Structures are given as structure tokens and as C-alpha cells.
């Protein structure tokens, strides 16, 4: 081979595979493929321009450039979706200067390159419903993001205005000072009781609605958009009492929230089902002291009880999204059917986050987000082999060794 030919060959190779950029994925073929709806054995997913171009049991893989991953023993699922996460928020997750901060965006504090987001990505979580913390009555705007940073390091945003985040119960009132004796200042936040939380919420809701979505005040405008149904409403409620409050004010204020936490949902699963309130359940914790979070009565099969009553559920790992798969494994251990658990961290999690048309299911036209495990995805002993985000390998286990 003379030098010119060699040079030509090298340039050609460089042109095909740009230096430093991974070869885009063309196809993933695995022994078992959970699509978000059913299990295909074997299963093939084809990618094109970051999207899924075809899914099937035995699809022919088209010729041409692009990497093919063929793992006959592996099990793949859609990229996992944590439907209620504060993972990757730099610094405190709640804005504490006021109790109503509708225009605050969790997205502004999200660091996709942080270790905890990378841990989440490596565990197979590709999408987060990213919300402000629970310490405010109206916490602000939640966004849906990918765990893999974008090409320039910026977050990959799936939906910027995913929900207005509210909190019921003791989280927004705990630790506040009563107003008497202390001047009205940022150090004297209002509600100190559950009824106070509701009073503050009603005020904010009514003021926002009156001001209208065109209001020049960003907070009022954000409230107004939620009140007008332009932004979905998400609220935290864990105890039977607080869940009951949600059901009551739902009619008063005219919103249809997705509820998260729901630790005592098992006590009133029939009421939640009847009211058609979807629930993002978790994180599940063993009641070491005999009581659950916020002094709730625990039931380890909470998710199972809600499912059997007909409530739509997703599961969450809260501030530790890398533990999302454990939430599904343990929910199954305590009684949730396997397929329901897998859907609760994929398709249903995406639906309840308002992004079911983009992620959570392996279907033609949806984002190319997928996880390949070396075994049963519901076994904590299974290892993540490959995580694909927008059609590109975002993590591979061998590379980390």
C-alpha cells in the first residue's frame, strides 16, 4: 500500500467514525425485551436519528453503518423513569424564603454532570421528573429531563413545564415560626399547621386565577397557568388525612393532581381509585420504628393494594434515583405483580409525568432510550450492561472497569 492510499483509507475511516464520538447505535437485539407493554423474546429495537424506528421480535437489521449490539442472554427495558425526583439538584432543593414560589424552576438547579445523576444513569434511569423540594406550599415548576447531559453539557429537557409542585401535610409547615413576636421577614414563614398550609394554598390559587396567565408577576402568572389547566398539578400527600384533603379541595379549586408519596394510600385505595387520582408511590422504607414517614401507618404492599383497587401507579425513589430499580424489585417482593412494577418505572411513570408520548415505552417514533441488563431487571443482582439515551450509548459497564 502506498502512502497516498493509506492516507486516503485513514481519512475515510476518520470520516466514518469521528474522533471522540461514539459510533451511533443502529440496533439492539436481546433475549428478552420489555417494551413497556409486553415482553418480546427475542426482541430487536432499531434506532434512527436518536429515535426508535422499529421494535419487533425478529426484525431484520438493515445494512449500512452503525453499531449493532447483540446480546442473546440479556434483558432490555425502556430507559427507567423516576416520576418524582430531586436527584441532581445542587444545594438545597426547596426555596425557603417564602412558602409560595410558583415561578421557581427546579431545572435551574439541576446539574446533569453531578455524581448522583451519573449514578442514576448507570443504574438505568434515563428520565427524571425533576421537582423542587417539599418544604414549600407551592414549590415551583417541575421539569422532565434526561440523566445524560446534552452534547454541550446542558440538561436534555423533555418537557420544561411538566407540573406545578404543591405540598400537603407537615413538610411545608414543619420548622416554621409562628408570626407573633417575630417581625414579618423571610425568617417568619407562614403555615405552622396543616390548616395553615391549605389557607396559604387557597390564597395563592385564587390570587393567581384572578391575576390571569398574562400577569406581569411571574409567580401569579405561573399560578394562573396551573389554575387554568395549562400546567398539570403535582402534589405531595402521604397520610390518609392529607390524601383526604387532596380529594376534598380537588373539587373546590378545580384541579386534577397527580399525587406523590401516598404512604397511607392502602388505607383508602378505593377512594383514590374512585376519584381517579394517579399516584406516584414511594420511596418504600422498612418501618424500623414501627411507623412510616410522617408518622404514617406502614404497609409494605402499599403499591400492590393501590394497584388491586384500580389506582394508576408509578414508583419513585425520591432523592436517590439510582435506587429506582430497587423500588420496583422490593414492591414485587411485597406483592406488586412483576409487569405492573416494570410499567410503574417505565411507561406509567412517563405517563404520570406527562411525557408518555416521548419516553417510557419502546415504540416507533419515541426517544431511543433503553437499558440492557445482564439478567432479570427486577433482580438487584443483575447488572446494567448498556444505557442508551437518544439513540446513543450513554453508559457501558465494561468501560467503567
Amino acid at each position, binding site marked *: 500500500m502506498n502512502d497516498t492510499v493509506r492516507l486516503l483509507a485513514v481519512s475515510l475511516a476518520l470520516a466514518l467514525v469521528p474522533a471522540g464520538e461514539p459510533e451511533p447505535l443502529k440496533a439492539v437485539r436481546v433475549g428478552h425485551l420489555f417494551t413497556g407493554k409486553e415482553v418480546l423474546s427475542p426482541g430487536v429495537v432499531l434506532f434512527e436519528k436518536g429515535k426508535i424506528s422499529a421494535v419487533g421480535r425478529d426484525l431484520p437489521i438493515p445494512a449500512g453503518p452503525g453499531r449493532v449490539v447483540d446480546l442473546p442472554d440479556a434483558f432490555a427495558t425502556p430507559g427507567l423513569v423516576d416520576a418524582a425526583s430531586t436527584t441532581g439538584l445542587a444545594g438545597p432543593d426547596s426555596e425557603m424564603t417564602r412558602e409560595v414560589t410558583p415561578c421557581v424552576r427546579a431545572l435551574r438547579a439541576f446539574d446533569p454532570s453531578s*455524581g448522583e445523576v451519573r449514578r442514576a444513569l448507570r443504574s438505568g434511569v434515563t428520565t427524571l421528573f425533576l421537582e423542587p423540594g417539599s418544604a414549600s406550599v407551592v414549590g415551583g415548576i417541575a421539569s422532565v429531563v434526561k440523566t445524560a447531559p446534552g452534547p454541550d453539557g446542558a440538561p436534555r429537557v423533555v418537557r420544561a413545564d411538566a407540573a406545578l409542585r404543591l405540598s400537603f401535610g407537615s413538610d411545608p409547615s414543619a420548622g416554621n415560626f409562628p408570626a407573633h413576636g417575630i417581625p414579618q421577614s423571610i425568617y417568619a414563614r407562614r403555615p405552622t399547621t396543616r390548616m395553615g398550609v391549605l389557607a396559604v394554598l387557597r390564597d395563592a390559587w385564587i390570587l393567581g386565577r384572578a391575576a390571569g396567565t398574562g400577569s406581569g408577576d411571574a409567580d401569579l402568572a405561573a399560578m394562573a397557568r396551573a389554575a387554568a389547566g395549562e400546567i398539570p398539578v403535582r402534589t405531595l400527600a402521604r397520610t390518609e388525612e392529607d390524601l383526604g384533603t387532596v380529594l376534598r379541595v380537588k373539587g373546590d379549586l378545580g384541579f386534577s393532581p397527580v399525587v406523590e408519596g401516598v404512604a397511607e394510600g392502602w*388505607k383508602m385505595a378505593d377512594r383514590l381509585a374512585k376519584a381517579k387520582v394517579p399516584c406516584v408511590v414511594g420511596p418504600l*422504607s422498612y418501618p424500623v420504628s414501627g411507623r412510616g414517614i410522617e408518622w404514617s401507618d406502614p*404497609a409494605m404492599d402499599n403499591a400492590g393494594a393501590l394497584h388491586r383497587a384500580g389506582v394508576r401507579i408509578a414508583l419513585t425513589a425520591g432523592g436517590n434515583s439510582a435506587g429506582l430499580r430497587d423500588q420496583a424489585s422490593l414492591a414485587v417482593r411485597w406483592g406488586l405483580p412483576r409487569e405492573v412494577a416494570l410499567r410503574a418505572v417505565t411507561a406509567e411513570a412517563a405517563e404520570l409525568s406527562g411525557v408518555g408520548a416521548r419516553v417510557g415505552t419502546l415504540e416507533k417514533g419515541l426517544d431511543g432510550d433503553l437499558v440492557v441488563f445482564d439478567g432479570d431487571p427486577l433482580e438487584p443482582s443483575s*447488572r446494567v450492561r448498556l444505557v442508551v439515551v437518544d439513540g446513543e450509548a450513554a453508559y457501558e459497564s465494561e468501560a467503567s472497569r
Partner: protein
Amino acid sequence: VRKETIVLAAALVLFAALPAPAEEEVLAVKARRILVVSGPPVEDGVVLVRGGKIEAVGKMEIPPLARVIDLGDGWVCPGFVEAHSQAGLDRGNEQQPVVPFASTLDSLDPSAPAIEDQLREGVTTLLVIPGNDTQIGGQGILVKPRGRTVEEMLVRRSAGLKISLEPVRNSSRAGQLAAIRKAMKDAADSRDAADRRRSDGATAAGDAPEMDDARRQALLDLLDGRLPAVIYAPLAMDARNAFALADERKIKARFVLGPDAWRAAALLRARQDAAGPDAVLYALDPVLEVIDRDEDQDAETIREVAGMLHRAGVRFALTSDEGGGPSRYPWYQAATAVRQGVPRQDALKAVTLDPARFLGIADRVGSIEKGKDANLLLLTGDPLSSATWVDRVILEGEVVYDRKDDRKLKRLIEGEKAK
């Protein structure tokens, strides 16, 4: 009917002829798979138990008159051994940082929920020892999670003296070590002084030699090699300090390592090699994955501690915690190790035989071998699977836990219905 009656009568005669029937009853556990841990698994085998001990394991004919537990598709593995636990203690540590004379014997509540949980999770032997927020924290005891009194639970009374290299409040790393060294030296010096006084026949006014003996006895036992130290070394650099501390006084020591331990893999391996082929010197903190921040490189790397140490040839006991997360379950800790690349049989060993070696009781527990205590988990399947339940627990030959009678488990799953 008649034939059955004759057989029954014959059986009764035979049974009556046996010397001590209750003691000598033979129990045969049939299972789809028996994970003996010390060797390859036995498929479709039997574990024979007599007098609280394992008599045989393998494929065999079940002796006549044996009581048979047929698990069908169930599996059997040894009871889990917990190498480092604060289960059942009201508090992990005394506020005073140097309390070698304290013992968890006086603090362990046999009816604590954390103790009751142990059998449910399959733990049959555990070291209950003071926590890590201390300098010399006191003595641990080796117990089985069954009995109305601590004495009934006791397997071994002086099972380890806790020393922690994690600085207590207002202390520095160097100060922590200085305080530990000073306590050891003071104990040795005061014994020498007491010996001299005794040989002189002189007693000072207000002298109470018995009191002095009681207060310094644990440290003297440590210095004389009768009581091993359990040294908590949270950082990799602490491992080096811990080794120096153990070696300069020639004390027997085992080490509980924090998640930073992967940095010290070569050092850990060298000490292990010097200690012999079966030595297990280390127990790992329940946290098995850490984010390692490199300020120079401005980079964060995720470290899988169990996998990294295993690949470096370091043997370890896995421990679990008493929190609400999945790391409270020994099976989950072993499954995590598998996820990090540890082979399944080694991961199971890290919650059974390796902690038994760490605790110096591998002659009694940790594997299914002839002559060992019959501590067996009768499982619905693979112990490392999240779908598997501990169905029954046999402790020293006796069925002490049965899932179908576990009312607390039922309440845990379903919640307290009546309100």
C-alpha cells in the same frame, strides 16, 4: 388400617427404645438445592440434623423414623452471620469515648424489634458490638437472635473490643489515635503498678484493687491476646494506622472498613496473605458504592467497593444496617456484590462463612458441614433473589421461625387494618 396400626406400633416401640428421643431425634431436610457454601451445591439432596448438629449432607437415603421436612422446590443455605451489628442496643455508644469496660451484654434488649427482625431476614448469628462513635467503645457479644434473656442468646461473651479511628466530636484523627494509645499504655502501666504493690504487700488508703481490675480487664485481655480488637477504619489511610496500632502491641485485630477501602486494596491484600489462606480480616460497611471526588481532575468516579476488593483478592464479610432501606437485608447486600462482579458463591460466602471466619466461629457456623451447628435457612428459592423468602429457620436443630406463623410479617405487608 390394620397394617398402619402395626407399623405405628412398631415405630413407637423403636422410638421408645431410643435413649433420649427429644435430643436424638433425626431431622431430614430435603431440598431442590443445598448451598453448603464450603463446597459445591448439592442438587436434590438432604441435610441430616441430630442433636442440634449437622450429621450429614448430600444425596442419601433418609433414615427410617427421621422427621422429614420436604421443601419441594425450596433451597437450603446456612444461616446468615452478621459480623458487625448494633441491633437491639438502645444507643450505639456511651458518650465517654474510652469505655473498654462497657459491654453490650448489659445493653442488648432481647425483645427489641431489631432482634426479632433478624430471624425473619435469616440471620442466625450476630456480633452485637458498640458503634463507631467512640475511641475504645466497649465489648461486643456474639449472640443468636433467640431467647428471652441475653444469657439464653449468648454464643460467646467476650467477642471483640471496639476501637474506632473515626474521630469523635472535638477530636482530630491524630488525637483519636493518641487517646487510644494512651488508654492501652495506662492499662498496662497500672497493672504493673498494681502487681508491684501486691508483691510489696502495701495498699494505699482508699485503694480498691478489684475496681481497678474490673475497669482495666478488657484492655488487659486485649493486650494479652484473649480478646480481639474490632477496629473501625473508615478511610483507606485509617487501615494503615489500624495495622500499626495492632502490630505495635501485638494484639489480635479484625477490621471494619469504610467505603474508601478500595484505595487500600494492595495493603489489605498483603496483610491478608500474611495471615493465612482462610483468614478473613475485614468486614465492609453496609455502603458498598461511593462517589469518589477527585479535586485535581475535577472529576467524580463511582466506586463499587465489593467488586473492586474482590478483584484485588481481598476476602471480606458483608454487613447490613438497621435502617429502612434495602441494605438492611443480608441477601440484598450479597446481591449487590454480585451486581458489582463478585461471583454468586463468593457473595453468599460473604454473608455466611466469611463473617464466621471474621468472628472466629467458623468451626461452629457459616456452612453446612458435618459437625457444625444446624443453623439452616429453608428458602423458597435462590437466597440472592429478591423474590425469595426465608420460609423457616432452623437454629441449632430446632425450627425457630416459620413464615406461616409470622403475624408481624403479615401486618407489615398488609398494614394494620383495624383503626
